[in-house]
């Protein structure tokens, strides 16, 4: 049962996929599982769809764990999934959102990389695709999107951790989302979750030209980090990617924003200053709980500010 599932420990890919199957079985009227593709190594890529009905309703996308070693993100994704099933019908804000919109949640965005972190190299970040002419493996799936692809802020070296790939969407894990988003055509918010360093970022990363909705995104980010901090006082910095960290071309939310998804954000979750990617499992639930408040803020705003 998902009631007895342990949310305060890290899980393997198989365990996460078993969890999602259980959740779907327990809430067939609310949750369904969509396979959006297969990874380079042939693993299925799943998205959980939370929907209370209607055809092609406007949707909110949340993905966790595109960088496989950021284990607290996949673990938070599991917690979010359970939280949605618990709170629908109980929490007025989430209920209002789901009565009008769908939530799409991809818990393991890079399944090959994630499996590899469990079996072989805990520090693996990229996909597991082969690059012709190189012994080095994998592409940074957060540099492989068709938004400023190939510009400064990503590497052309296959051995680099920020290798962008040979061409945009070369990674099936990226292309599967691209196809899904374009076929869906009605996604209104897109939130991509990473760890760590306590940031909430919005486009752009590939250019210093402010996004047309810069002011609105900045205000929404401020509200979201304020809500997040209200639980445990965790302080987040917010702003555009390029202004807040550094130039990053070919990243996820620049592409989604350019597709017309105005509310495009990326999170970097908790940084205790002590553990980095090795955040102890005891911090999964606090991290997920505080992040949920920020997610809810963005989702509610999306509901109330249609475009």
């Amino acid at each position, binding site marked *: 049962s998902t009631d007895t599932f342990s949310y305060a420990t*890290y899980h393997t890919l198989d365990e996460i996929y078993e969890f999602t199957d259980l959740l779907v079985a327990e809430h067939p009227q609310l949750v369904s599982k969509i396979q959006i593709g297969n990874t380079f190594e042939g693993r299925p890529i799943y998205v959980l769809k939370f929907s209370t009905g209607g055809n092609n309703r406007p949707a909110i996308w949340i993905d966790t764990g595109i960088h496989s070693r950021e284990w607290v993100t996949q673990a938070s994704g599991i917690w979010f999934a359970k939280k949605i099933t618990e709170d629908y019908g109980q929490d007025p804000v989430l209920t209002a959102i789901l009565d009008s919109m769908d939530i799409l949640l991809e818990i393991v965005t890079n399944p090959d990389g994630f499996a590899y972190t469990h079996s072989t190299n805990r520090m693996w970040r990229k996909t597991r695709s082969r690059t012709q002419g190189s012994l080095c493996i994998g592409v940074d799936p957060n540099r492989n999107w068709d938004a400023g692809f190939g510009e400064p802020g990503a590497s052309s070296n296959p051995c680099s951790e920020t290798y962008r790939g040979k061409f945009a969407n070369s990674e099936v894990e990226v292309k599967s989302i691209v196809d899904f988003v374009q076929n869906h055509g009605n996604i209104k918010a897109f939130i991509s979750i990473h760890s760590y360093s306590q940031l909430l970022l919005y486009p752009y990363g590939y250019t210093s030209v402010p996004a047309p909705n810069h002011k609105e995104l900045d205000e929404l980010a401020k509200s979201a980090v304020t809500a997040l901090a209200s639980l445990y006082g965790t302080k987040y910095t917010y702003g555009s990617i390029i202004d807040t960290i550094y130039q990053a071309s070919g990243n996820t939310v620049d592409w989604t924003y350019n597709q017309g998804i105005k509310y495009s954000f990326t999170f970097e979750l908790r940084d205790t200053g002590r553990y*980095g990617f090795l955040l102890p499992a005891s911090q999964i639930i606090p991290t997920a709980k505080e992040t949920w408040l920020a997610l809810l803020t963005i989702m509610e705003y999306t509901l109330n500010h249609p475009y």
Partner: protein
Amino acid sequence: NKNFVGHQVLRIFAADEAQVQKVKELEDLEHLQLDFWRDPAGAGIPIDVRVPFLSIQSVKVFLESHGISYEIMIEDVQSLLEEEQKQMSAFKTRAR
């Protein structure tokens, strides 16, 4: 599983742009096999880097010779990974 015995994660504090550039030079030294967890972004923003055991001395000497301050964020990556594994195994035992 890949072994991370003796790997350390250093938290580096670059005081100005010149020091940020110096740390970026480290990124280009492939033989050191550094893994930047938080890339050099700007002065005053912490930079975290996992340093394999064999490169620790060189990196620390480089930082100290350029007056760049740092602290050890993780003393031994492998010991943290073993803790993590132990916790996961304990959970599985309980679950069974």
